[in-house]
């Protein structure tokens, strides 16, 4: 009936030494306790309003209590969150975890830093009704600026009246603070500060709202530094992270500068050589950049419909050119894979078989003596495998194969669920099916871009190409249906 159960009343009674409170008394008191509590809270809310706050504090409750001539509750003013603990052995008894403190410890502890003192800052919120673009103000939305208001939109307005409403945003002036900020950030990036500092830098770039005026400078900075510092891997990494932070910043409208930013980003993905010496781990940078590109396409793809097409074209070009270095191929595959399984189906799978055939000699230790090159080839192979695998996985997730199994597949009726068993299963296939199966699968692979392609065939052909390593990508349920 009341939100205060009568058990609570019993507990309170016990705490003040009344052990044999009658049940009826508790039941009668409970609703009244609730009512009084609500009353106090109403008063506390009143105090909160007069303190012009929207969050109720313990102080408000104490003020409300003293208004009612009730002793305030001591010990709750610190503002720390209270920790309630359940009493051992009781399911409904809670107490506040109030540790005993040693006074000596407290007195001997070094003084904590004093909190910052209250201060007042003054700035122009508006000048003749227009908000100046200064860091103290909410960033103005550049997209809502004049172009949307066309003269034809407002009938019956004379042109000279129009000018009144169409005051342009205040001219682009970099404040001293912003200049300092830019200098400091670029310096930190170029000199390569320690990780903690850099982390703060990226966090600041990703969240600060007043940075919009700096965007052209930053894009220019990234472009310059990428061309200059192709051998400096940490620098490139930092630059990509700067780009990502800027893209993440919700207060920045980076769209107009994307065309400047994209070449640098693409460079970091498919450049022939990143980082000075060959053994530097540039793969990580390529992976990071691939996800960055995918992010850009996802976020701005709707605004620039040809953005993704252009990016894909570049990547495909890099992928299909056999003269390019393995590293470039790797970047291209990673980039396409990051853009989604549809593109993998469209661009990679049809070319997969030819490509793998070219790749295999590079990977074998007999044909390729250069160990580094062999390693690179293996990386590309891995990337292809992951791309194809994820693609299949997503296809299966979105459209599980509905096809009935071919009649000649004897082992399809199997109910075995374990992966190992399934893996071995496909080796049991009859030899005569195999020729026909292989043909069909080849066809399936080269026609992977078609909508109606059979997932089962695709899987099989991929398993042919990659062997058992493809199997972990396929969910068990589907596997049992598709594997021939």
């Amino acid at each position, binding site marked *: 009936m009341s939100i205060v159960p009568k058990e609570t009343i019993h507990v309170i009674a016990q705490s003040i030494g009344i052990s044999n409170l009658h049940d009826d008394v508790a039941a009668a008191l409970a609703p009244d306790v609730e009512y009084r509590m609500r009353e106090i809270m109403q008063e506390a809310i009143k105090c909160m309003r007069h303190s012009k706050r929207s969050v109720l504090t313990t102080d408000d409750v104490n003020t409300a209590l003293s208004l009612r001539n009730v002793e305030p509750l001591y010990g709750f003013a610190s503002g720390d969150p209270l920790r309630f603990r359940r009493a051992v052995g009781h399911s409904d008894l809670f107490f506040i975890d109030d540790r005993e403190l040693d006074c000596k410890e407290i007195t001997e502890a070094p003084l904590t830093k004093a909190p910052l003192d209250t201060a007042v800052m003054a700035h122009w919120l508006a*000048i003749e009704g227009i908000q100046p673009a200064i860091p103290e103000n909410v960033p103005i939305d550049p997209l809502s600026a004049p172009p949307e208001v066309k003269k034809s939109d407002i009938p019956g307005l004379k042109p000279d009246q129009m000018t009144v409403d169409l005051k342009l945003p205040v001219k682009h002036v970099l404040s001293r603070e912003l200049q300092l900020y830019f200098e400091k950030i670029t310096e930190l990036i170029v000199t390569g500060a320690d990780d903690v500092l850099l982390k703060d830098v990226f966090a600041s770039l990703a969240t600060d709202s007043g940075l919009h005026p700096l965007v052209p400078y930053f894009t220019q900075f990234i472009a310059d530094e990428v061309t200059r510092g192709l051998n400096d891997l940490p620098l490139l990494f930092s630059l990509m992270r700067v780009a990502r932070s800027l893209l993440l910043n919700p207060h920045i409208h980076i769209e107009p500068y994307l065309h400047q930013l994209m070449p640098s980003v693409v460079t970091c993905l498919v450049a022939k050589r990143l980082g000075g010496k060959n053994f530097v781990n540039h793969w990580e940078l390529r992976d990071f950049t691939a996800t960055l590109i995918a992010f850009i396409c996802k976020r701005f793809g709707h605004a620039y419909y040809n953005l993704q097409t252009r990016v894909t074209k570049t990547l495909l070009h890099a992928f299909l050119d056999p003269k390019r270095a393995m590293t470039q191929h790797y970047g291209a595959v990673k980039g396409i894979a990051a853009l989604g399984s549809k593109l993998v189906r469209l661009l990679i799978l049809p070319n997969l078989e030819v490509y793998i055939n070219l790749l295999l000699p590079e990977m074998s230790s007999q044909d390729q003596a250069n160990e580094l090159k062999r390693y690179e080839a293996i990386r590309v192979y891995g990337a292809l495998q992951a791309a194809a695998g994820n693609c299949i996985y997503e296809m299966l997730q979105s459209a599980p194969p509905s096809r009935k199994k071919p009649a000649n597949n004897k082992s399809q009726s199997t109910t075995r669920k374990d992966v190992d068993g399934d893996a071995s299963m496909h080796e049991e296939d009859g030899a005569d099916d195999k020729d026909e199966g292989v043909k069909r699968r080849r066809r399936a692979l080269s026609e992977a871009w078609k909508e109606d392609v059979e997932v089962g065939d695709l899987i099989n052909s991929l398993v042919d190409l990659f062997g058992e390593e493809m199997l972990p990508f396929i969910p068990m349920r589907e596997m049992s249906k598709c594997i021939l």
Partner: protein
Amino acid sequence: DNEAGRYKESYSKLRNWVHSSLDLYKTELLRILYPVFVHCYMELVAKGFAQEAREFFQSFRDDHQPQHIRDLQKLEGVITPQHLQENETACTLQENKVHVKMCQYSFELLLQYLQSTESMLMLGIVNSHINLKAVLPGQPAALLDDDESSSLPAKVQAVVEATNQKEIHWGILEGSLEDKFEKQIAAELEKADADKDAETDEAKKRAADGKVKKVKRDKAGKGLKAEPAARSVPRLKPELTMPLLTDDFERQALDDLRNRVKLGSTALPSVSCYTFVNTNNSLNCASISADGAYLAGGFSDSAIKLWDMVKMGEPSMYSDAGKQSLNKRPTPIRHYIRLVGHAGPVYGVDFSPEGDSLLSASGDCTIRLWSTRLNANLACYKGHNYPVWDVQYSPVGHYFASASYDRTARVWSMDRLQPLRIMAGHLSDVDCVQWHVNCNYIATGSSDKTVRLWDVQTGECVRIFTGHRSMIVSIAMSPDGLFMASGDEDGAIMMWDLASSRCVTPLLGHTGCVWSLAFSGEGSILASGSADNTVRLWDVNGSSKVTADKTRRLRLLKTLPTKSTPIYTLRFSRRNLLFVAGAFSPSKGH
């Protein structure tokens, strides 16, 4: 058991019937649901069906939530008959019948329903607690959509109607600064005209440089001419003895008025924002002096902090001393002066018109007077028995008014420690107070959702303004003394015509408490500052000039958002520069 169940059953039947009625009558019939709901609940409680009452309340609460949330919160805890006697909201509801207006047709529909279904319970409730009024015989469309009438108890309604018949004088004061200013302008204008006549004769003889001069003079003349046109506001003799202004101050004020920027829908004001930082949520109120030179903040730790904004740009004296001294640790730089004296949170501060003194209202039931020249406490006014929520100087200084938790507003003069007048009548806390420009009236806003206007001389209530849906937190008076704006907790602002006590138009847009309202110097723009981190500028020129034309709506001119700074106070300087102040309070999410 059965009896309790019948309440729920018949109410839900009535509710279904209303909801399934024709849209044409639905809006009118819906008005009856809330009073019936509340009285059903209270009857259940009175009969001791606590459990059933709670269930009934919970099952239909959502229907009334949007409009009556605050009342519902107050009623929710009431579960025993004893609470019914104590609860303020419940008492008022029980004592008073509620007026519900509806057209003849809806009225008959309702009666027919109540009789045909033989729901005696509902009929009984409607009979004993609701005063149904069939106002218009025509179609409901003709009825105005004012639901204020449904929420107001009948007894109060009668008082309101009687009170609002009283005569008030809304003109501005003879001998006030504005008056003096206009007289001065008029005198100058005559002189200028005479000069011009003389000059035109000479101009024919003179060369080009004279021409330039003349153009200039013409411009000045035009600007001045426009001024007396607005002079339709009658002048009043003051009822209080007015304090004398110092010559210096008067000269400066007149100079300010002369340099006042003319504002309007096309000429928006410049806004200077003072942001308090590192307040740790302890800033309760703020006030800015008329020239923007001083800024005071009242804090929950009982202190008042006073900033001299003129000195802010300069390097502090303390810091220089710190550098030169041998002790290498610099002494902390403090740009403000701390005024200590109160023994409770400071809920209101206000500067005198001259800016040389400061009043503060506090939770320790006192009002204190501080000198900004001496930085010391001059007087402590005791009289309220409960926390004082707000205090305000009269436009001429010397007198001030306070609003308190004890449901009274009091008028004081600086030289007496006891109040001159006690205004009692509000049914709940008086939350804010505002002087009329002619000093003969004060307006008070209360938690009982009404604004009242009081005659300072007699202490009588002369106007009651009803229509707000929640507690009033700010009031402003237009400089011509004709209009008043009041802002409430939900973010609604209402413009009132003082003479008729009618709401000219509600200004909707804010989503948080409207902490502060201010009219520009010539009354063409209303600025509002709110807890939703925005300052909004409203065009009110339309209303004050074309009062007869009711269709003309006041419009929002501009919304100026801040970076997470709720606006606690705002005021126009005499030169029409808008000062706003608030405490920077970043949201917890970051």
